[in-house]
């Protein structure tokens, strides 16, 4: 539009927002391709085959189990009626609040040979009673699947609620029973959502660092960490990071293929809730038992264990150090949330007034981070800032690290990883502001700046709040970036969890974990509140 406010400024700002991400990626690629042949041969011989096999098995196993859990539970709560359905429909989201690394150490602490559960079982059934080892590929897969099924559950449930009702009725009118309807109509229709959910699970699994560390299960992320903190070889770390990026890209391609040509269509509200399929008697209680088991394993039991351990150690452990952990965690999360929100607003505004190839490409690059594992971003940030520091030193002299190992480096990592989290709600908020509202405001005499302050910001309100909250909680939970780029002494709650679990001090890891889980409940509560509101509106 010719009369729109200047487009140049916003487009340039969008490019500026994308620059850090670009620098990080360039650093990874440059550092990795600069690695010499000897290093490459060493890696291939000693590390790669194991790490690649481990990663592949882990991703496939976790996606398969999480997809099965998520889809079946979504179908039960969305389209069936059984005891406790209303409760489970939101309660099954609660495991989202428990980071995989917390679930992992709780599982190891309680199910390992010396843990409470096997000990009890042996005392009942004799010493020979076989308990499957939790520190195994199977155990790792089970824990990660339990931590990540809510992604599939959430997406599948949305799909089933959106057109489950009408489509199933159509299927029934054509002679298909409800179960035939599920497999022949509802699941195929939900395929884009299921593929989206499965892709999120694959991303989370590839990115996971904390849980696999607890299990001592070597994947790319732990290999990157060890290469750097064990071998002090940033080149090796960068090379592994680049290879991990290849896996991420493969997962994204797989999602595209699985989604097929289908498109997400907007969920149209006002569809009346389906006549749910009643599961009578034993079948209803079987559904209850299934949902209750997943809920208990994914949330209730870990929460009880954490609370007990935390209570036990609180008297000794809870000292002035904790004030520091909490303040640093809240401070970092707050700064990161503000930074991400500000940059997301810049991108959103740029997309609004200067939509075009430049702005779109910039937004795409700036928000790549959510698909890129934190360990990759961490080595990228360190490498990029190290190069800048080197340049500084040649100009200004001295030996100092100007950027590397500062809070700025940490924030840069967070912004690279979580800008997309803030970008989504902000962009959604802008999209809901019709262009005619802006024109109305201008015809009533408002300048460009007044349109932003009196129209955009008030109307974005909820979106801004959501964006900040999501980033805040994600940063609180974040482990690899914090661990690898934090300034000396900047230990947060997540770092404390990592250090305590590394030493097998499970009870002492429970206290910071509990704080993280409680914070993690906030976005889940927001999500369920939205779901309830949407359900009431329908």
């Amino acid at each position: 539009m010719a009369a729109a406010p200047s487009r140049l400024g916003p487009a340039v700002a969008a490019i500026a927002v994308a620059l850090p991400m670009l620098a990080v990626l360039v650093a990874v690629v440059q550092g990795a391709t600069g690695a010499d042949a000897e290093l490459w041969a060493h890696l291939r011989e000693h590390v790669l085959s194991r790490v690649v096999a481990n990663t592949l098995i882990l991703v496939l196993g976790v996606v398969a189990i999480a997809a099965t859990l998520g889809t079946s539970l979504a179908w039960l709560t969305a389209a069936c009626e059984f005891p406790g359905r209303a409760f489970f429909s939101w309660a099954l989201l609660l495991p989202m609040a428990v980071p995989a690394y917390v679930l992992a150490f709780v599982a190891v602490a309680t199910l390992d040979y010396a843990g409470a559960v096997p000990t009890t079982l042996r005392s009942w059934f004799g010493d020979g009673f076989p308990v499957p080892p939790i520190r195994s590929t199977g155990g790792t897969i089970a824990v990660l699947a339990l931590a990540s099924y809510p992604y599939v559950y959430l997406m599948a449930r949305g799909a089933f609620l959106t057109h489950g009702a009408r489509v199933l009725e159509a299927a029934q009118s054509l002679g298909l029973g409800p179960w035939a309807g599920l497999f022949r109509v509802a699941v195929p229709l939900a395929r884009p959502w299921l593929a989206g959910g499965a892709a999120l699970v694959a991303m989370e699994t590839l990115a996971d660092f904390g849980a696999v560390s607890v299990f001592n299960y070597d994947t790319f992320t732990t290999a990157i960490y060890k290469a750097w903190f064990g071998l002090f070889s940033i080149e090796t770390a960068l090379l592994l990071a680049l290879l991990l990026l290849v896996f991420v890209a493969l997962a994204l391609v797989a999602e595209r293929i699985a989604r097929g040509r289908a498109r997400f269509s907007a969920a149209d509200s006002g569809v009346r809730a389906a006549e749910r399929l009643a599961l009578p008697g034993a079948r209803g209680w079987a559904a209850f038992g299934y949902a209750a088991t997943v809920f208990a394993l994914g949330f209730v039991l870990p929460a009880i264990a954490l609370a007990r351990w935390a209570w036990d150690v609180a008297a000794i452990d809870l000292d002035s150090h904790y004030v520091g952990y909490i303040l640093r965690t809240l401070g970092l999360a707050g700064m990161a949330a503000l930074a991400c929100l500000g940059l997301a607003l810049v991108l959103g505004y740029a997309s609004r007034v200067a939509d075009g190839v430049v702005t779109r490409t910039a937004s795409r690059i700036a928000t790549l981070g959510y698909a890129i594992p934190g360990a990759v971003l961490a080595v990228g940030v360190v490498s990029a800032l190290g190069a800048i520091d080197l340049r500084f030193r040649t100009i200004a002299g001295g030996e100092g690290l100007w950027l590397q190992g500062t809070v700025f480096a940490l924030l840069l990592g967070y912004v690279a990883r979580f800008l997309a989290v803030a970008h989504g709600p902000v962009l959604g908020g802008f999209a809901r502001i019709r262009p005619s509202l802006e024109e109305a405001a201008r015809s009533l005499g408002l300048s460009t700046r007044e349109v932003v302050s009196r129209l955009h910001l008030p109307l974005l309100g909820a979106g801004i709040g959501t964006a900040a909250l999501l980033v805040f909680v994600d940063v609180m939970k974040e482990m690899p970036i914090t661990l690898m780029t934090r300034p000396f002494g900047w230990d947060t709650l997540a770092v404390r969890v990592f250090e305590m679990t590394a030493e097998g001090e499970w009870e002492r890891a429970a206290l910071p974990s509990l704080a993280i889980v409680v914070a993690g409940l906030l976005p889940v509560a927001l999500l369920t509140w939205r779901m309830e509101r949407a359900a009431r509106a329908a």
Partner: protein
Amino acid sequence: MRLELREVSKAFPGVAAIDRLSLVVGAGRIGCLLGPSGSGKSTVLRTIAGFERPDAGEVLAGGELLSGRGTWVPPERRRIGMVFQDFALFPHLDALSNVAFGLHAMERDGRRQRALEMLGLVGLAAEAGRFPHELSGGQQQRVALARALAPRPRIVLLDEPFSNLDADVRTELAQQVRAALIAERATALLVTHDQREAFAIADEIGVLRSGRLEQWDVPWQLYHSPATRFVADFIGEGTFIEGTVLGPGRVSTELGVIEGQLTTEQPPGTHVDLLLRPDDVIHDDASELRAEVVERAFRGAQFRYKLRLPSGTTALSFAPSHHDHAIGERIGIRLDAQHLVGFPRG
């Protein structure tokens, strides 16, 4: 204030949305641009409001140049109010705050007073505290009008103001809008594709076709003496029959010689297409002239018959509803044209 457009053109890639359009709406008058969709009506409004920059021509309000000759006044400084098709009420503000939104230059008390006054003018004083989603479509429309009028704009533009409303509230609402505009002594220009709306609200109407103004006139003239074949077709119902001009006020047709004043005098011998309005064709059982009923539509008080004349040409006729004839029946008709509208054939 007087609104004037001089030779305004605006092209979008591939199409000319407005083509050398000139018009004047006198101060305090209500003008209307009428045209089918895609005729460029909305582009004209958006150009006047300043949301589009014209390629050529001048836009003036009250004699002040808003755009053209190197001048460009941005929309927020034009003092031109606009009522949008989707009303564009601010969803985060109640009705009163919506109306007060454009009064930012005033102090608090004055702002509130003026906003209440405007809500009262459109009959919504009791709804001041309601939010847009709590108002009906017609109420939202009136809030939008009150908001546009509140800052005493030089000109008010209304873009298809009734198209999002139910048919049964449109006519009444159009009268209320007209009353409000007149009470505020506002100069207004609205665009619509619905001629009944245009007739209900406007003092003068311009018929727009492919970005060009075909005729600018009072409603009665548009209907009874359309300047072009397009206007004749677009305004009201009607059909054409062939005829030959015999002399001043006399045209020979298959229905006999018709007498009346031709709106544009043609020399004898000219072949013309003569416009027949349904109210020109009177159903008369006594008449020698016969036509076959090919379509009938019951409209309560009357029937609208589509008739086939002996030559095969069709004509429309309104008949009182007790004249109930079946399709295929041949009924008597006579012509009662006060004035003739004929376009040379070519």
